[in-house]
């Protein structure tokens, strides 16, 4: 973790005013997506920009310091990591999708007789498995929304419930995976070894996941009132009688990505290998006429018609990625292009949000909250643990990117926990579970936005021509259905109150921090 810069800011009205940019953004997000029902990420970018400008007006002294803090936030490594993960995962997921993977899943679900009722519960389990393997909940949300979500819709599963199940699986993996960035942050900041942290959190994750599976089964098969109140889009008629199983070969390149990630390879390296393999499969499947895919599905330059472009189009090799079109349809396309482009608004939003969090740190907003909590609220071990759970949950409910929120709250959890000699494993578990859970529930949560970005990519996508803008799940409507996230928070509130899973420093000291 890089050292925080030394710039401190002073705000008119006190330290809590430093939270103004983020507070304004949250109000904007609630107004835009919660009340008006507009799930436009670029609209949220405008909200965060407005917040940062309004915050500037309250700065005492040199406004240049405020600008420097904004820059310091945007150049944080955590922001760059999120950007890279989204670009690469976006390209990969889209490339698999044009390769017929959705059709393959529909074929498998039909053969295995997984109906619309069972589909959300199965999706939760598979998403949890993938996320635990690759350690990125955002990547899982993107991959499953691009690939499994349309398959579920074609089978007649409820879209809102299905999106909730995908996000739940992402929460599970983000929480439990040894290679997850939130897991690593939780272990490192609480002075505990990663293996011990993961082993000790199974007892909470399993309880919450069991409840979540039951909930998805009950909701999937439809209790009256739950099913009836959900928007339901019937596209089941779109399932072709003869969907091809061949897209399932892409399970191989997914396996390659997971295997490389688990071995500790960098996400750029792991996903690039998967992408190359997927592209090779697509070319082979297309050449063998097994799936309707070609090089042009992955990259296509649509050029205006003239002598030069027509000559290029006629060339061998290069001509495969060039077509000539009427002037109005000129552009670049294909899965590599649209997979990455789908995340541009979210990437800009992330950079601005991390800047907002940095302003709050430099202005003392985080410190003000800490002092209030430690001295007045956390007077017994139960109240201290409850405060750790609620505090972590609240910070993560407000800061979009959960790794950033976790880094911000981690020192408070350490100070509060050490005061009552709560074991490092327990502290890390409280920190990570509530970080993972809340990042995928609310409409401005990074995990939810990542999935939603992928869903927007389905509109008019080459592999999903039937998916229209009306079928998009409103990001503000999914929060009640992220069952695993809610159950995880509930399990920790229960554990704080009853002492379930509690360990003291004197019971067992955590081992040295080591990278696995």
């Amino acid at each position, binding site marked *: 973790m890089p050292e925080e810069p030394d710039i401190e800011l002073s705000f008119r009205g006190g330290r809590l005013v430093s939270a103004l940019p983020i507070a304004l953004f949250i109000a904007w997000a609630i107004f835009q997506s919660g009340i008006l029902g507009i799930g436009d990420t670029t609209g949220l970018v405008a909200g965060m920009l407005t917040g940062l400008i309004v915050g500037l007006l309250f700065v005492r002294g040199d406004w240049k310091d405020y600008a420097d803090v904004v820059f310091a936030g945007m150049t944080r490594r955590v922001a760059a990591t999120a950007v890279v993960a989204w670009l690469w995962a976006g390209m990969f997921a889209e490339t698999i999708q044009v390769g017929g993977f959705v059709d393959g899943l529909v074929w498998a679900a039909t053969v295995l007789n997984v109906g619309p009722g069972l589909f959300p519960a199965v999706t939760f389990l598979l998403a949890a498995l993938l996320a635990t393997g690759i350690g990125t909940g955002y990547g899982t949300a993107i991959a499953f929304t691009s690939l499994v979500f349309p398959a579920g819709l074609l089978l007649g599963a409820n879209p809102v419930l299905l999106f909730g199940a995908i996000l739940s699986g992402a929460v599970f993996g983000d929480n439990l995976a040894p290679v997850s960035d939130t897991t690593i942050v939780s272990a490192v900041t609480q002075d505990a070894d990663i293996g011990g942290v993961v082993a000790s959190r199974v*007892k909470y994750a399993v309880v919450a996941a069991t409840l979540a599976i039951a909930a998805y089964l009950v909701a999937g098969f439809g209790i009256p009132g739950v099913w009836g109140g959900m928007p339901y889009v019937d596209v089941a008629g779109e399932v072709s009688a003869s969907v091809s199983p061949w897209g399932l070969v892409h399970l191989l390149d997914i396996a390659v990505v997971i295997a490389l990630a688990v071995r500790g390879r960098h996400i750029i390296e792991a996903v690039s290998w998967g992408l190359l393999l997927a592209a090779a499969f697509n070319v082979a499947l297309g050449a063998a006429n097994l799936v309707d895919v070609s090089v042009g599905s992955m990259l296509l330059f649509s050029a205006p018609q003239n002598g030069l472009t027509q000559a290029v189009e006629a060339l061998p090799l290069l001509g495969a990625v060039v077509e000539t079109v009427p002037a109005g349809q000129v552009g670049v396309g294909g899965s590599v292009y649209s997979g990455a482009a789908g995340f541009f608004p979210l990437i800009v939003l992330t950079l601005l949000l991390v800047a907002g969090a940095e302003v709050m740190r430099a202005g003392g907003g985080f410190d003000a909250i800490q002092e209030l909590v430690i001295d007045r609220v956390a007077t*017994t071990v139960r109240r201290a643990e409850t405060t750790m759970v609620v505090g972590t949950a609240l910070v993560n409910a407000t800061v979009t990117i959960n790794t950033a929120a976790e880094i911000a709250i981690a020192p408070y959890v350490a100070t509060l926990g050490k005061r009552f*000699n709560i074991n490092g494993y327990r502290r890390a578990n409280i920190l990570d579970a509530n970080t993972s859970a809340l990042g995928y529930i609310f409409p401005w949560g990074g995990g939810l936005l990542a999935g939603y970005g992928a869903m927007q990519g389905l509109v008019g996508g080459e592999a999903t021509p039937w998916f229209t803008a009306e079928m998009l799940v409103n990001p503000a409507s999914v929060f009640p259905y992220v069952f695993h996230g809610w159950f995880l928070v509930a399990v920790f509130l229960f554990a704080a109150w009853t002492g379930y*899973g509690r*360990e003291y420093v004197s019971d067992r000291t955590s*081992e040295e921090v080591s990278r696995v």
Partner: protein
Amino acid sequence: MSRLDKLLAGWTFRTATPTFEPGEVITAYVSERNGDGLTVRIGDSIIRVEDGRGAAVEDKIRLEVTSFDATNHVGTGEVVEVLGPDA
């Protein structure tokens, strides 16, 4: 500790007021400093140490419990070793 032991540790409901036996040596963080003395809270149980040997709040110490009243969850102890703050 083996991986299996790590997996099976802590599947219990642990009390908010743990008890200790005189002579027991434990590791704990310092919760508060009062003059030369220290207060160590383990959950809601409190162990008081008269000679803190310079240990600061959030320092880890090795501590020998010298007495413990299980009814009021209060005891006394002596510093065996100051391990210092976490890395």
